[in-house]
């Protein structure tokens, strides 16, 4: 099927720090021509041979975004069998996102879940025996993007988008009911009113676009959850990394009742830091909710930083936490190393293995020697003091190493969701400008609803709702018409 041109981040943004933005479809070459600049400034990639690589820059209206290598593959000799362009960039995930956004701005649309593979198959590139797995992949990727708990988290954006949609459908319904029943409902003077409404809605969309620009809508990056028993120093770590007093830090156990989030940029790697309430048995209802939430966040975490209060001995709470860390990417910080040490590195390791073993009903005899223990479990443990800022650099280096070694990965889906959302917000914004123009051009009212409806549909892709009978329902419930 010859479809439109799609684009997406094709590789994980993690391994080796180099990422690929892939474009596929008829307009791939004309898009790259508009945003690629060679060193001497006059190479046109639409003219070069297939399967050649070109060094240069990606620019948006003369502004350089990144230094890149571009691979050109002409139809039908590509994965999708369509004209395909791959942009290798290495400026980190933010730059990659900028490049993808630029590609979309110049005419591509964000690829849907599994769409490259789907195209490859539909164009006969993939063997028929693989059809089943292609179909499963599409469905699975779709499920992930819809069910990902992080997707659900963006309640705030959805709320704002829904509010705009509600206003839009109300106006469309008004226009439509007047067109259907001109003898009952008049549109006199309506264009002035709609002009004001469009102004407001455009303002609200701008606000959302600004937020999405700052990555404030949906925290993308590596979901890093800080966990530990009460007063282990979790909030201090968050504040230390974020560089400001975000959490309330006190000496009283259980001060962080809810979950705190902070996004930090660690030399180009985005960490989405989540500070959780200390996990411990509790009867306090408010705190209980915090603890339950913390456990939920753990499930979605890409990386867990476990803070041990090394000035106390490991207790029941620590054992419970250790139980949750099995098979996860964990960094353990032995905090408060500036105080007297009651818990050592070896004791933590021992406890970890015991937890695991107890659960699996293994025998304990062979775990006697300390040497054996350290050879079984390789997880990094750092002596740390949030108060004296000891071990901070070590922690940062460690996270970077893990990232570039591909041990921890940011959730690509969120990244995609963000790009799609931004594209949707922008198209909605464009549709509203078209309405504004129709009003300025004194077009008849029925022309307004065409673009109002487009804006409504675009925004619906963010909230995951299709139009269906929305309009007809709104017309009948809000406006009295009929013979």
């Amino acid at each position, binding site marked *: 099927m010859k479809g439109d041109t799609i684009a997406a981040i094709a590789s994980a943004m993690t391994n080796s720090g180099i990422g690929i933005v892939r474009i596929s479809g008829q307009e791939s070459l004309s898009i790259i021509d508009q945003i690629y600049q060679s060193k001497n400034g006059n190479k046109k990639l639409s003219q070069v041979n297939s399967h050649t690589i070109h060094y240069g820059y990606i620019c948006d209206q003369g502004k350089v975004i990144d230094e890149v290598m571009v691979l050109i593959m002409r139809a039908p000799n590509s994965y999708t069998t369509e004209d395909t362009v791959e942009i290798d960039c290495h400026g980190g995930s933010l730059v990659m996102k900028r490049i993808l956004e630029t590609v979309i701005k110049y005419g591509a649309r964000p690829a849907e879940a599994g769409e490259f593979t789907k195209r490859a198959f*539909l164009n006969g590139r993939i063997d028929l025996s693989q059809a089943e797995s292609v*179909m*499963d992949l599409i469905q699975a990727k*779709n499920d992930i993007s819809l069910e990902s708990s992080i997707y659900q988290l963006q309640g705030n954006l959805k709320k704002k988008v829904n509010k705009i949609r509600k206003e839009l459908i109300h106006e469309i319904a008004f226009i439509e009911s007047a*067109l*259907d029943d001109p003898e009952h409902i008049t549109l006199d003077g309506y264009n002035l009113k709609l002009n004001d409404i469009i102004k407001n809605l455009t303002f609200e969309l701008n606000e959302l676009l600004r937020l999405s620009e700052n990555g404030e809508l949906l925290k993308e990056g590596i979901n890093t959850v800080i966990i530990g028993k009460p007063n282990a120093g979790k909030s201090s770590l968050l504040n230390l990394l974020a560089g400001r007093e975000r959490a309330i830090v006190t000496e009283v156990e259980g001060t962080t009742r809810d979950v705190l989030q902070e996004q930090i940029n660690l030399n180009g790697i985005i960490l989405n830091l989540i500070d959780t309430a200390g996990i411990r048995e509790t009867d306090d209802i408010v705190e209980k909710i915090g603890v339950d939430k913390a456990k939920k966040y753990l499930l979605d975490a890409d990386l867990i930083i476990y803070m041990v209060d090394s000035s106390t001995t490991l207790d029941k709470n620590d054992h419970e936490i250790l139980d949750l860390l099995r098979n996860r990417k964990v960094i353990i910080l032995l905090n408060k190393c500036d105080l007297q040490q009651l818990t050592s590195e070896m004791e933590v390791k021992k406890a970890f293995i015991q937890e695991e073993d107890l659960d699996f009903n293994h025998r304990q005899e062979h775990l006697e020697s300390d040497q054996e223990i350290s050879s079984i479990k390789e997880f990094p443990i750092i002596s740390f003091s949030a108060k004296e800022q000891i071990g901070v650099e070590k922690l940062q280096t460690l996270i970077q190493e893990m990232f570039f070694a591909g041990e921890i990965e940011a959730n690509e889906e969120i990244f995609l969701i963000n790009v799609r959302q931004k594209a949707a917000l922008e198209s909605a914004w464009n549709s509203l400008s078209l309405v504004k123009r129709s009003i300025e*051009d*004194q077009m008849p009212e*029925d022309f307004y609803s065409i673009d109002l409806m487009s804006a409504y549909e675009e925004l619906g892709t963010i909230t995951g709702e299709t139009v269906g009978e929305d309009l007809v329902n709104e017309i009948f419930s809000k406006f009295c018409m009929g013979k």
Partner: protein
Amino acid sequence: MPCVTETYDVCVVGAGHAGCEAALASARLGLETIVFTVSVESIALMPCNPNIGGSSKGHLVREIDALGGQMGINIDQTFIQSKMLNRSKGPAVHSLRAQADKAEYSSNMRKTLENTDHLTIRQAEVTELMIGDGILKGVKTFSGAEYYSKAVVLCTGTYLKAKCLYGDVVNYTGPNGLQPANLLSESLKENFIEIFRFKTGTPARIDKRSLDFSKMEEQKGDQKVVPFSFTTNPEDVQIDQVSCWLTYTNQKTHDIIRDNLDRSPLYSGMIEGTGPRYCPSIEDKVVKFSDKERHQVFIEPEGLYTNEMYVGGMSSSLPEDVQHKMYHSVSGLENAKIVRNAYAIEYDCINPRQLYPTLEFKKIRGLFSGGQFNGSSGYEEAAAQGLVAGINAAMFVLNKEPLILDRSEAYIGVLIDDLVTKENHEPYRMMTSRAEYRLLLRQDNADLRLTKKGYELGLISEDRYLKVIEKEQLIAKEIERIKHVNIGANNLVQKILEQHGSTPLKNGTTLAELVRRPELNYEDLAEIDSERPKLNYDVIEQVNIQVKYDGYIKRQLKQVKEFKKLENKKLPQNFDYEQVKSLRIEAKQKLNLYQPINVGQASRISGVSPADISVLLVYLEQRNHNRKS
């Protein structure tokens, strides 16, 4: 027992607006056709409002006409007032509406039926579908007579198990006290056809002589009447028109209604059927829109030779005494004499999901249906479906490709696709907002869109077809010409622009660019266009619209291109979607139930997600490959 047996190609059950179009189309295509009606006097009866057309319904009539149907011609010959609605709006929502002389409309259509070759009219109640070994054989009537045919078209309207109600009075009749059809429903159920029960209503008719028109606003027809049919000579419809009258309900009316709500069969639970939201009874309006101080009431003549007036906007099923008080509270109706009471009517219809977009039943080959029987409402909606059902019954008998119009081709396509694809819980009415490509589906270009198809089917004469082709060429040629007529900023041009309140030119431009200005049109610019050929108004109208709204039209054409991609991907029939493992459970169930004809239709079924559609595309591709190899 001996009985009458006859054999036809096509049996049409019912001679309302759907049945008439179905029977005419089938007979005109040369097939021996019989149409059954419970009463020959009720052929093409208008039991509710006395008009044809209106917003989006006018589009349907134009399309019926462009395909070779009868409704447009019939109303052109029997209208008594006509208006083009929404004239101040864009061309896509201009809509014709004409008041009919009801009796004339009906008898004129009857005359047409009676004088059509290959068409037999029979007054009889059809009670049974004859089906043997799963194959449709024909129909049986109440008397036991058997009519064998290859195809049957059901257009029973609101007659199946019909029941009319007001207050606690129940009449087991069809509309207007006509005989209902009580037995056919059972035969349908025996053949596993799923039945719905719907409801609609009509207002009272009152005696013209008892009304005080001085308290009402007169509503006149258009000065220059535009005909519905592309075949009608515009000169022939410039007649003396009669007026309608506008008045309003008031607080007193609303109080009377509110005080007696408990006596409405709707609120006491006597009515089980689902009523339409778009044509609410006056009691519904008062309850739902309680903040409105008054509602409009249109007093419309039912014909030239009757004193009966239709009380538009006040349908009701309240008891007779309340109706009297309620109507009398309206300004100008204080002394109104009621000729016929308002009533609600309940009837059996089918769940239209059981039909293909050809209007053939998925489970019974050769069985077609159209009109209110399919869960729609309105004369125009009925006629449109009747025409398609009749055409496709004929195509079935002739073993030819059926007619399926898609959503980008016609309002008829939107209507049928909505009916057979979307879940429908109330009588379906056409609305312009339902047509996503309405800028292309205008009433003014119905001939350009559909007459070729009508010609290919055999319902349009060669002569008429050639005229449309010529019109098409003239339009294209003229548009091309004005795109290349250069206009300089000379004195005459500036003067003309000034006359029309348009900003003067700074640089030269083309005539087409000037036509695009909101305050100008093609005809305004005749003076500065010396080479202009002499063209008919219908050509000029198209040139003007197509040039003026070019940007919008192009955008919609682009959307249509996208839409057609999925529409052109055919799906296998009687297919078990359980085989496609990656589909979600809900999608499998819905697809099995609906058996969509193409991927586009599948994508419009609620419960089928975009991911399911992707999966389906991959599956289809795999299947096609396997077939080829």
